[in-house]
């Protein structure tokens, strides 16, 4: 009985290690398999053919403009949370495939992306406020697309604060309070049939 007790943790350890190794191999296989698909994906720049990509969920307005649609997109795999966050946001700022509509005004660029010690992400944008068409709904869609793009793909990040030109601001277009870090909000997300 005591023997068993002594060996049990070791046995569990070995099992866990084996499981982990198997998991890593499986992951690598999947990544390389996805790599092969990349050139076919419209979003991938030709030069990045050999860069591994990961599949992420980005958020765009539905063709009607009344909700957010989650779309699977390929973005370059990056080293580390912050670098990956930048890749995700850079992709989120790009025009979506038709008939979806970007909720972020074109011309908006990512000034900075960083993560605080507390694990809050800061998304610093420029050009977003002046070009925003306004309206509560559109502003909610804009804010939720940014916050959800980060939190849905980077589980380590629970809260996202949007900055404009490096500064904390009240709102983007006069309605939605963005003075504090925001958590994921899926109230306006409408799940569609699985996208390819």
């Amino acid at each position, binding site marked *: 009985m005591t023997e068993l007790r002594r060996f049990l943790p070791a046995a569990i350890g070995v099992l866990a290690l084996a499981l982990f190794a198997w998991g890593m191999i499986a992951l690598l296989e999947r990544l390389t398999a996805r790599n092969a698909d990349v050139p076919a994906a419209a979003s991938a720049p030709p030069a990045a053919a050999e860069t591994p990509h990961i599949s992420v969920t980005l958020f765009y*307005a*539905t*063709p*009607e*403009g*009344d909700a957010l649609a989650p779309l699977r997109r390929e973005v370059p795999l990056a080293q580390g949370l912050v670098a990956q966050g930048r890749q995700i946001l850079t992709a989120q700022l790009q025009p979506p495939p038709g008939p979806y*509509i970007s*909720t972020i005004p074109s011309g908006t660029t990512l000034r900075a992306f*960083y*993560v*605080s*010690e*507390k694990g809050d992400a*800061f998304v610093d944008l420029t050009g977003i406020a002046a070009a925003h*068409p*306004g*309206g*509560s*709904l*559109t502003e*909610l*869609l804009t804010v939720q697309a940014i916050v959800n793009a980060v939190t849905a793909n980077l589980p380590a990040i629970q*809260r996202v604060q949007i900055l404009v030109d490096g500064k*904390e601001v*009240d*709102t983007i277009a*006069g*309605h*939605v*309070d*963005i*003075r*504090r*870090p*925001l*958590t994921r909000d899926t*109230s306006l997300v409408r799940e569609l049939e699985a996208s390819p």
Partner: protein
Amino acid sequence: MLLVETQGTPPPAPLTLIAREGRRAVPTVIVSGQELIALDDVASLFQVTVAEDAPTGGVTVSYRGRTIVLSTQQSIASVNGRVVTLPAPVARSGRRLLVPLEFLSRALAPIYDRRIDLRRASRLLIVGDMTVPRVVARIDSAGPPTRATIEVTPAAPVTVTPDVGRIIVRVEADALDTSLPAGGTALIDQVRPGDQPNTVALILDGAAGTPRTATTTADGVTRISIDVPSAAAAGDTAAPPPPPTPPSDPLPPVVGKRRFTTVVLDPGHGGADTGVRTADGLLEKELTLDVARRLRQRLETRLGLRVLLTRDDDRTLGPDERAAFANNNKADLFLSLHGNGALGPAVSGAEVFFLSLDKEGESVRRSANAEAVSLPALGGSRRVLEIVPWNLAQAAHIDRSSTLAQMLDQELKRHVPMSPRGVQRAGMRVLTGANMPAALVEMAYLTNPDQAAKARGEEFRNSTADALYDAIARFRTFADEKAP
């Protein structure tokens, strides 16, 4: 004739005067370890007259034919002929005369018509027949369950109301003399004064489950025991039967006998901020002002209400200015009017919003009594976030704001096309600082060609004003019925 010239330092915490008329800070100054108060402040607070007799170095304080004679040389006072000692003589700071704080309890109190109760330890000066029990809170064990006790002395009826992420303890009293733990422990993040002068709020951690409370009164002390289990534990173990719970009617946040009299309407946008623009050039800021004026006319003439607009012309206003305008005018209702915009032309219909309090709102509430919160930011810098307590004012009115939003939705439905989204909760910036029931109405989508065309016309604007009028009339009846 030698008077001490005095500079002094401010006290570590201000002295607060609590009276039937309200509460206010009383300026005091520390000089050589003595806390002093200016006699001209005493004169204005207590309606006494102060006269200085320069040749003798005497100072006379009179109140309704009764007199106190003070000395600039000796630490004594003659109170209606009876001598009392004070820790220091009268001092001078510039043209002002200063007396030790004890003057209030030892010299003024015996001749004053109302009770004067100076509680130095808790920095309170209670004037008149006010019930201000001592409330001591402590966290007994980290647990889980995290256990806390609140003792009210002398005993008083209490109401314990669990809310989202917090527990509100309301004591039947005019104010509270609180001694609260400095920080939180385990599942209790903070114990702090509540939004009302007679409440204490326990802010719970995000991992806290449903708390259990029990109230007992013995030996002149009311004791509230609070057990906060962890949410995980509450889920998988069959919770033991809760101890007897005290009555916990959710009380309305505003207690008072005033009736519903004042409405503040907030025409959205204005000035440089035009809001949404229709294809043919109608601006949201024009529509909101016009409908606000129509609504004001209806409310004034039909209900006799006092109706104020945050702007009655085309000017730029910040969100805090709008809420502050409503707060300063003691509005019973705040309604912000807007026109909506969508990325597609098909989206249409009116929508109603009231404020959502997410975890962030709660966490700011937790630190609401701090002056500033320093947040670390990457790159080694720190950001200092100023926390303005009134800016969270709306949190106390969420239930009524929800009722208001429902009424607005129901009445709008009868007059104008509605969006399928109906009543929504969102972090609407302009609502956060409103210290009264508040909602935001998006009247129509100005990006929808049909709605944009209608928004130009009298019919739509009158229908919307009629709907909003009906909702406010209903809410007024509701508010007056609920008023104590």
